[in-house]
């Protein structure tokens, strides 16, 4: 069964990207060109990420949890462009990165084709008029990296639109460990519902729904910065440093109830817990995040905290209480939280 190794719904990021004291995209991504990024309304509510026009080159990069290198993977996301241009012959909007090198990429041309690139070399393309402007399209790229027996298969809106077999590696080794989104000189685009798995086998169209804390579990030891309810300090649909919960003593722990799914889905492939945390002096501090499903409570490894805000995230591909795929009932009963471990 494929494991999700990275996912982002872009729903809760602060737009003030240049302020390191605000928990923006840089709390999870590496963002060389943050001035071109905004977070407009998303595909199914919430928000998405917008990579603006007139910025050429590397805009934002993400690297997978535990710095995992993948030789076989599926990269899937919703894409919308307001204008297409191929003023640049190989202006890939997305690159699979091996550290900082381009391994394989996708480009949308000015006739609505999606073109596949190995490094800077185009190896295949779809038929024209596939990608419409100002319309969401869901792309799924199945990728197997190899110098001779590689494969790249692209699905758009559920239809298989192009497949390339052969050399899919720009440089050895074949694997990649991150994604890079690039700007175009005259085209901007939106990305939403992004996920990456460790297997070249697509799930089909997916969305990412974000659930927020909506109640304290009794016995919580973190103190709200104001008022008497802790959950209301960390339930912002736009993560903010203006209110927070805090604790000092080793072992302090809090759990929270969460909002329910909007509808019961057929499939739930993964659940990701995000916690934005910081410490306020220079001494070493560690935090564990907690997922509680049924009576089973699982703690993450220790995360070392910096003195600015970082997004601690962990992905649970299966329900820890059953070892099976998540169900809507399991997600709706989920509790989550954190604990000071050093």
């Amino acid at each position, binding site marked *: 069964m494929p494991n999700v190794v990275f996912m982002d719904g872009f729903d809760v990021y602060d737009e003030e990207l240049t302020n390191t004291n605000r928990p923006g995209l840089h709390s999870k991504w590496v963002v060389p060109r943050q001035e071109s990024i905004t977070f407009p309304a998303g595909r199914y509510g919430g928000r998405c990420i917008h990579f603006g026009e007139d910025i050429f080159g590397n805009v934002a990069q993400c690297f997978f949890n535990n710095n995992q290198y993948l030789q076989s993977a599926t990269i899937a996301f919703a894409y919308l462009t307001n204008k297409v241009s191929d003023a640049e012959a190989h202006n890939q909007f997305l690159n699979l990165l091996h550290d900082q090198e381009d391994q394989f990429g996708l480009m949308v041309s000015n006739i609505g084709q999606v073109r596949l690139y190995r490094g800077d070399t185009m190896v295949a393309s779809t038929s024209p008029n596939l990608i419409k402007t100002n319309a969401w399209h869901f792309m799924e790229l199945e990728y197997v990296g190899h110098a001779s027996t590689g494969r790249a298969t692209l699905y758009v809106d559920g239809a298989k639109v192009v497949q390339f077999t052969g050399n899919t590696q720009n440089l050895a080794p074949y694997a990649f460990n991150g994604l890079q989104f690039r700007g175009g000189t005259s085209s901007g685009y939106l990305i939403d519902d992004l996920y990456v798995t460790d297997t070249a086998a697509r799930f089909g169209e997916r*969305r990412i729904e974000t659930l927020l804390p909506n109640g304290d579990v009794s016995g919580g030891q973190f103190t709200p910065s104001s008022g008497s309810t802790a959950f209301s300090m960390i339930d912002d649909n736009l993560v*903010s440093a203006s209110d927070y919960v805090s*604790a*000092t003593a080793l072992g302090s722990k809090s759990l929270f109830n969460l909002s329910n799914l909007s509808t019961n889905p*057929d499939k739930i492939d993964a659940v990701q817990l995000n916690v934005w945390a910081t410490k306020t002096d220079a001494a070493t501090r560690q935090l564990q995040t907690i997922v509680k499903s049924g009576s089973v409570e699982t703690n993450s490894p220790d995360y070392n905290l910096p003195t600015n805000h970082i997004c601690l995230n962990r992905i649970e591909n299966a329900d820890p209480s059953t070892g099976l795929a998540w169900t809507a009932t399991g997600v709706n009963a989920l509790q989550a939280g954190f604990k000071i471990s050093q």
Partner: protein
Amino acid sequence: MTIRITAEQVSVQHTGDPQVVVVATSMEVAGSQKFLPLSVHDMQLEVVGVQPPMTILVHSAELESLQVEPPGAIEVQSSNVEALGTVFQKPTEILGMSVEVLRSVPGKRRRPPVIVVAN
């Protein structure tokens, strides 16, 4: 002055004579008594990964202030220092939390509508 540590990790800072030496004379680790000489010269002392209780003996008549975190982690049993000093806070702050669910788009047993727009 004898102080007792009641947390697994503490930080001690002093702002007095730079030659003040803080010496840990003994501590309990996994049930066995061990001796841990520690010294600090106008800098932060951290004792990491030990199990309480631990006893630290401070040799100084010139200690002007002692900063301790977490608050209450050090219990002063006897002291020749008039002021314990400012509590040195080291809180952990959580600004936000969310759970993202990767899910299929349509609801269960319900197909999404196909919308046709025509004259």
